[in-house]
C-alpha cells in the first residue's frame, strides 16, 4: 500500500520535474503509432554496439551451420607425425593439436557444438519455464507453492552441480547434455516468468480484461505474454551464453560431449597441458569463446535497455 503511495509521490514529482520534456513531446504530435515490440526494436537499433553484436551472432550461427563446408580439414583425422604444429604450417591455419588434428577445423566444429547446445538447452528451458511459469503464476495456490518449494530445493545446489548429476546419469551424448543444461536452467526462468505474470496479474489492465469477460488462458496468451516478451528476450539473451558456458564447463570437467566431438572446454583442458610450449592451442578457443560471450552480453544489454523502460538510465 505505502509503496503505491510512494510511487505516486515520486511520479508526481518527476511529472513536475519533467514538465518541459512532456511539453516537448506533446508538440511532436505525429508520434507514429508503434507496438511495444516495434518500439523496443527501434530503441535497440540505435545502440550500435548491440546491433553489431547481434549481427556478429548471426555470422557465428551461419559459420556454425556451414562448418562442414568451411572447415578445411576433418576435425577427427589424426596425424601423429604432424602433432602440435605451430599456426600457419602445412596448411594448418591454426596449427595442430596433440593428436595432429587441425585446430582451425576443430574450432569451427566446437562453435557448432557450443551454439547448438546453447540454443537448444535454452529452448528446452524456455519452453518448460513458459508452461510452468505461466501456469503457476496465473493459477497460484498449490501449483505455485509446489513450484516455489521445488525451486527452493534447486537453489540449494550450486549452479553447475545439478547438470553434472544429470550428465552422470544420462551419459555424455549431445542430447543428454542439452537436457542436463536445460533442466538445470528452466527453474530460474520459470520463476522469472511467474514473477512477470504475478506482476501483471495485479495490473489494472489485466483486471480490466477480466472485467470484460476475457478468460484466463486468453488473458495469459493475448495480454500477459506480449508484454512479457521484452523481459523474456532479455533473459534468453543472457541464458544462451550461460548455457554455452555450462557446456564448455562440463567439457572442462571431462563430462562434456563425448570425444571426438570438439568442444571449447575440451580443447582448452587438452591444450592446457601444452600451454607453455604451445599456447596457441588455448589462445584460439579462448579468443573465439570470449568474443561469442561478449556478443551475447552486449546484445542482451542492448535488449535490456530497449525493453526495460523503467531502468535507471531513463530517469
Amino acid at each position, binding site marked *: 500500500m505505502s509503496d503505491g503511495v510512494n510511487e505516486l509521490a515520486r511520479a508526481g514529482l518527476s511529472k513536475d520535474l519533467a514538465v518541459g520534456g512532456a511539453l516537448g513531446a506533446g508538440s511532436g504530435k505525429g508520434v507514429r503509432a508503434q507496438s*511495444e515490440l516495434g518500439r523496443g526494436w527501434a530503441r535497440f537499433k540505435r545502440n550500435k554496439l548491440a546491433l553489431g553484436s547481434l549481427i556478429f551472432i548471426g555470422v557465428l550461427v551461419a559459420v556454425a551451420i556451414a562448418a562442414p563446408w568451411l572447415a578445411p580439414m576433418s576435425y577427427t583425422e589424426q596425424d601423429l607425425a604432424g602433432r602440435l604444429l605451430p599456426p600457419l604450417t602445412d596448411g594448418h591455419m591454426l596449427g595442430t593439436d596433440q593428436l595432429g588434428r587441425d585446430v582451425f577445423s576443430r574450432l569451427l566444429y566446437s562453435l557448432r557444438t557450443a551454439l547448438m547446445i546453447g540454443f537448444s538447452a535454452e529452448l528446452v528451458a524456455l519452453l518448460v519455464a513458459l508452461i510452468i511459469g505461466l501456469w503457476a503464476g496465473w493459477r497460484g495456490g498449490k501449483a505455485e507453492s509446489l513450484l516455489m518449494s521445488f525451486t527452493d530445493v534447486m537453489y540449494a545446489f550450486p549452479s553447475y552441480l545439478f547438470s553434472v548429476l544429470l550428465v552422470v546419469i544420462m551419459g555424455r551424448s549431445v542430447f543428454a547434455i542439452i537436457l542436463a543444461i536445460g533442466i538445470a536452467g528452466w527453474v530460474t526462468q520459470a520463476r522469472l516468468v511467474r514473477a512477470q505474470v504475478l506482476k501483471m496479474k495485479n495490473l*489494472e489492465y489485466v*483486471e480490466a480484461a477480466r472485467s*470484460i469477460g476475457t478468460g484466463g488462458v486468453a488473458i495469459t496468451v493475448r495480454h500477459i505474454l506480449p508484454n512479457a516478451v521484452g523481459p523474456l528476450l532479455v533473459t534468453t539473451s543472457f541464458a544462451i551464453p550461460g548455457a554455452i558456458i555450462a557446456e564448455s564447463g562440463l567439457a572442462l570437467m571431462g563430462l562434456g560431449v563425448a570425444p571426438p566431438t570438439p568442444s571449447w572446454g575440451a580443447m582448452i583442458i587438452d591444450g592446457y597441458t601444452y600451454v607453455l610450449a604451445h599456447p596457441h592451442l588455448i589462445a584460439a578457443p579462448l579468443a573465439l569463446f570470449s568474443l561469442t560471450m561478449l556478443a551475447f552480453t552486449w546484445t542482451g544489454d542492448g535488449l535490456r535497455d530497449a525493453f526495460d523502460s523503467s531502468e535507471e538510465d531513463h530517469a
Partner: protein
Amino acid sequence: MSRNWASGRDKHDAVHNAASTGRVGAEAVTGALLSVRELAVEFRNRRGEVSAAVNRLDMEVPVGGAVAIVGESGSGKTVSMRAMLRLLPETAQVSGSALLAGEDLLALPEPKLRAVRGQQVGMVFQNAMSALNPTRTLKVQLTEHLRWHGIATGREATQRAVEALDRVGIPEPAERIRMYPFQLSGGQRQRAMIAMAIVAGPQLLIADEPTTALDVTVQRQVLDVLKQLREDGMATVMITHDLGVAKYLCDEVVVMRHGDVVESAPVRTFITNAQHAYSQQLLDTALDVDTTADERDTSFATADKGATTGAPARGARTEVPAVNVGEQRRDVETSRIDESGTTVTAEGYATELIWAQDLAKVFHGRGGDVHAVTDVNFAIAARETLGVVGESGSGKSTLARLITRLVEPSAGSVSFDGHDMLTAAGRELKGLRRRVQMVFQNPYASLLPHLTVAANVHEPLRVHGVGSKAEREARAVELLDLVGIPRERVNQYPRQFSGGQQQRVAIARALALEPELLVCDEPTSALDVSIQAQVLDLLEDLQSRLGLSMLFITHNLAVAQRLCDRIIVMASGHIMETASTPRLFGRPQHPYTQALLAAVLPIHGEPPPWTHNPDVAVDTSGELVETSPGHWVRMSVNGRAGRPER
C-alpha cells in the same frame, strides 16, 4: 500557448509592478521575508535539448505571511521552490533571484546556502514515507542538522527534537523519537517530518503538497499543525493544487500554469473575484461539499437532473458562491432500504438491479487476516447512482471488485437482475460480465498498452463475439467519438494520450458492451481537478443518456455529492452510514460521517469546527439502525451513534 497566459492582463501586471518596485532598491525588501524575482528553470537533457519548466515566477512572502502556490501537475510549482533552494539536479538551469532577508539564495556560495537550508528555511515534502530515511530513527533525523548548523548537540539536541515533536502534536514524543518512520501512522509521520523541518527554528517553511497523499481526516489534522505554526509567526509557502487548503492556510495565492504565474492575489479576493480565465476555470471546476442541503428541500429532490442549478462547471460564476452545488437528485423517496438492506421501491423489488447481501472479504496474508469488507448490504436500483465513500483501507475498492467478481468474496451473495453473480460460471458469468462493467482508478494502467485505443475499445466486443470485425471497429470509433476522442487518433496507443483522455477511452471501453451497471473505482482521483470535472460531466451525461446504474467509489465527498443519488460511508470494511445524498450531507448522523464532512476545507464559506482524532480507530461495533426512511446509521447497543467515549 503558455506565453499567452503569461502576457495575460490585470493581476499579472500587478505582479510586474511589484517586481519593479522590488528591483528599485534593496531597502524595498523591508517587510518581505522572501522575494522571488523572474525565477526561471530550464532542464537540459542528455541530448542537450532544453525544455523550460518555469518561465517566470515572481512572488513575495512577508515576514510571518503565508502564500499558496496553486497549480495543476506540471505547472512548475514544485520545481520553482526546489530551484530556489538549489535542490534540483545539475541538469537544471536556474535564473532570476530569490532574496531571503535580502540575500540572494541563487547567488550564495555553497557553505552559506547550506546554512540557510534547514536553519532559515525548512522544507516539508509530500510524502513523509519517502522523505524520511527508513533506516534511521527520528532522533537521528531530527537532530543531525542541529549539529550541522551548530545549534545543539547531544542531549540538548534530543531535547529540542522532543519539543519539536511535541509541538506538532505527536503523543509521547520522548518515546516516539526512538522509533523508525515506518513505525508511525501516516499522519504522525507527516507531522514528524514537519517537526524535522522546524526543529532548527527556520523563519520560513516551504510545504510541498504536504497533505495530498493523506486521507481527509488526517489531512485536516496535519493542516491544523501547519496553521498553528503560522499563528506562531512562521512564514509559509504552501504548494498545493487544492484551493480549499490554500484558503484555509494562506493569505495570498499565486496561480501557476505551464511554468507561468497567471494570477496572484489575496486569497479571499481571488476566490470571490478571480480575474484570469484560467483562475476562473480552476475555481469553477473545484468542487465544494455543500452541507447546507437537506432532504426537506423536496423541490430539489424531485428536480430533473439535467435542469438543476448543479454543475458548477457550467454554472455562472457570478452567483453567490456559498451554494455552488445544488441539488440534482432523482426522486430519492422512491427508493429506500428495508431492514435486510435491500432497496424497496414503490413497485416493490422490481426495479432493483443489483443486490448485495452480507458481503464479506477476508484476505489471508502473511501478517495475519485482513477483514477488508464485513457484512455489507446494499442494492442499486435501475438508473440509480450509489456512491461509496471512505478513506484508504475502508474496503471500498475491494467492494467494487467483489461486485464485479474480480475478487472472490469470503461470504455473502450478489444477485444481479435475478442471477447469482457469485456462483455463475462459464457462459452465465460471461453474460453477466457483459452487463456489469468497470472503470478503474488509473486510466493508463487499466488500458492494454500493446493495443491501440480503438482496439482497446473493441476488445470487449471481440471477447464476447459481438458483430463482425468491421462492425466492431466501427462501433469502437463511434464509442470513442461519444467520449470525445477524435476519429483521427483512434489508432494511437494509450501512452500517446493524456490522463483525462485515457480515462475517456477507458469509459468508452466500459460502455462498449452496453452494460447496465457501471462500477467506477475512483475514476477521477488520478486526474487534475479541471480534467476531473470533464470526466464527471461525461459520466453524468452518459448516465442520463444511456440509463445506466452506477456504483461510484470515491474518497472525495464533493465528487460523491455531485454525482450520486445515495451514498454509503464505509470505514474499516463496515458500512457506517447510508442515506440519500442530500440527507447524508445535510444531516449526517454518525460521528465518522460528520468528521469526514468537517474535514473537507471549503473554498467558499468557513471550515466547520474539528474535533475528530484520526489516530483513534473508528468504532465499527453496533448495528445499522434505520433512523428515518432510507437513512441507516451504525449504532452501538445503547442507541448512540458511533464510538463510546474512551
